[in-house]
């Protein structure tokens, strides 16, 4: 009896050892709430790949990218897989560092048709590498206050063009308590509107890598922002400040032009008590653009690229998993097939029962994309600065943009 037990234990140990040899552990670096997504779908993943263990490295949103950059720079201790947000993807587009997923054995170009086209294009670099797989996207949208619009006798249908928006804005900007000072505005910040209009963190360079910040798209963005500012329609409140939160709570700004994800923040902690008072609409003037989005990347220095690729593929290309992720974080999935799910037709209580996801689904299909350029981040800074000069110091738009282009070109290559 004893002997039999001993043999049994030995056999079990042997089996375990053999099994353990094939087992790999991959480290996955993410920021919240992506850790909840991965933890949520991990059982399903491990049912498919029982020999892959996943270890999460979670850091704050900003800190995560700083750390990823540091490990890539050192070429040591890189995670096997990492999340990258749109505001940060430019810095990872430079030569080397991340695996080109269009090459064998990944051959990821085969998945192109799954994804919304612009997110797929932004995963590419100017020199044609595919450095990331899209996980979620964020269409830009216009949130508007139903109560404020009703009180001022304005209908959302009046806003078709940006000219309409500014015209209506004059009625939405007023002095409510009669103390002689304006205390309600059309929008939080004209600068944010301009940024949405020119395309957010990307689209400063064309396919060939030429700087195009003096193109009509930027001129138009600057003109609209200038018109809003000159008519005194924006509250000039910078985003992510107490003033900003308070403005949403009190309804002192009638519209907010931002990523669709702003609703999550409003609902969870900025202004939960305003549920039902909001509506969502397409941006005026037939503009479709994005504000945010997440990709997954695999560092070149990783030792477990194959296992990491399995998880990336599982998270990004599997519609069921994308749907689960959507349920957990409410971030818009990048896989188009997911949008056919009935959940996208459900009314959104926070937006007064409006089926807003249908709206966003339509918007993302119109967005055009360009490849990601390593100098996008510095270009963003220089163009924002040009905008400040136009809005605050009255500098002519053409002059400011020409100067911005010169400054950007001076910096590239260093």
């Amino acid at each position, binding site marked *: 009896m004893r002997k039999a037990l001993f043999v049994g234990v030995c056999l079990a140990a042997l089996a375990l050892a053999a099994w353990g040899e094939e087992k790999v552990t991959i480290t996955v670096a993410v920021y919240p709430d992506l850790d909840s997504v991965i933890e949520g779908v991990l059982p399903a993943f491990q049912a498919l790949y029982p020999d892959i263990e996943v270890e999460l490295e979670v850091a704050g949103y900003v800190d995560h990218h700083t750390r990823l950059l540091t490990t890539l720079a050192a070429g040591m201790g890189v995670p096997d897989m990492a999340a990258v947000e749109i505001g940060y993807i430019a810095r990872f587009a430079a030569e080397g560092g991340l695996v080109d997923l269009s090459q064998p054995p990944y051959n990821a170009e085969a998945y192109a048709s799954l994804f919304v086209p612009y997110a797929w294009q932004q995963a590419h670099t100017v020199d044609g590498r595919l450095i990331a797989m899209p996980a979620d996207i964020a269409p830009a949208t216009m949130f508007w206050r139903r109560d404020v619009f009703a009180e001022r006798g304005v209908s959302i249908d009046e806003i078709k063009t940006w000219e309409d928006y500014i015209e209506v804005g004059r009625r939405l900007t007023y002095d409510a308590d009669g103390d002689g000072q304006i205390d309600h505005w059309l929008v939080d910040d004209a600068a944010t509107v301009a940024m949405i209009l020119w395309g957010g963190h990307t689209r400063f360079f064309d396919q060939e890598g030429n700087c195009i910040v003096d193109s009509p798209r930027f001129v138009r963005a600057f003109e609209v922002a200038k018109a809003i500012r000159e008519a005194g329609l924006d509250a000039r409140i910078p985003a992510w400040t*107490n003033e900003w939160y308070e403005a949403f709570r009190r309804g002192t700004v009638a519209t907010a032009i931002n990523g669709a994800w702003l609703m999550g923040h409003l609902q969870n902690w900025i202004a939960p008590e305003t549920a039902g008072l909001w509506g969502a609409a397409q941006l005026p003037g037939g503009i479709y653009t994005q504000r945010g989005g997440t990709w997954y990347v695999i560092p070149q220095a990783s030792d477990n690229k194959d296992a990491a690729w399995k998880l990336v593929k599982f998270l990004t290309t599997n519609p069921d998993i994308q749907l689960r992720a959507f349920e957990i974080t409410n971030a818009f999935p990048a896989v188009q097939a997911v949008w056919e799910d009935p959940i996208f037709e459900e009314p959104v209580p926070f937006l007064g029962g409006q089926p807003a996801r249908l709206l966003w689904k339509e918007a993302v299909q119109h967005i055009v994309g360009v490849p990601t350029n390593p100098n996008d981040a510095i270009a963003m800074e220089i163009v924002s600065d040009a905008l400040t000069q136009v809005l605050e110091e009255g500098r002519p738009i053409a002059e400011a943009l020409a100067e911005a282009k010169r400054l950007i070109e001076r910096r590239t290559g260093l």
Partner: protein
Amino acid sequence: MRRRPLPGRLLMYLLLSLVAVVTVFPFYWMFILATQAPAEIFRTPPHLWFGRSGAENYHALIRALPTFWRNMWNSIYVAIMATLTTLFFCSLGGYAFAMYDFKYKNQLFALMIATMMIPPLLGIVPYYIMMSWLGWIDKPRALYVPSMASAFGIFLLRQYIAAAVPRELLDAARIDGCSEFRIYWNIVLPLIRPGLATLGIVTFVGSWNNFLGALVVLRSREAYTLPVALRSLQGLYTTDWGAIMLGTALSILPILVVFLFASRRIIAAFAAGAGLKQ
């Protein structure tokens, strides 16, 4: 002794108290915010009194960060190790610079001061490379070993020792046959306790708030120190403010205790050592 006229004294107290209120306010504020619900935290004008969500925030904190107390312990451990080692090596160095004459002393001292002027920001990549080479990733020693002998600490204690330790005492000890290390350990150290308290609190605070270094060398949640752990709750689409606030308030407590415990010493230490006599 002539007393000063009453209005003058009142004005003085009023002024001193006003400044004190302004400086202590943020601490009061932290604890107020820690007891409020996330939606209340960013309210303007703010609530100036305790809210009722303290317990709720605590549950949110532990749910979001199950390793909170572990992280607190990591911070305490690193801060204590940093403080002890810094005090030892800096007092040793400060003692040598203050009490000995040796070749190249001035040059070595100037070199040390110059290292203080080097902006540390860019060091983060080479620092990470070194810690990887050494295999110190996720190890607390990566945080305190490199800064054990700080230029500032040696400088501060050199000034203090020069003022507080009489040379005659050391010569007497030498005649009695004390070894140099024994003189340092048995005579100098007890004399400079207030100076050590000052450097101690500066080191403790610095270590406690060390963020960027901790971010790159600590990778797993179990190894995190508090600043990194608390900031790991900041997401893109969600941020758990109630938990972050309470965690931050709790993270201040140990340092507050250390400070209250040592502040009389610190001030006395400055008092005795700040004359900066050669």
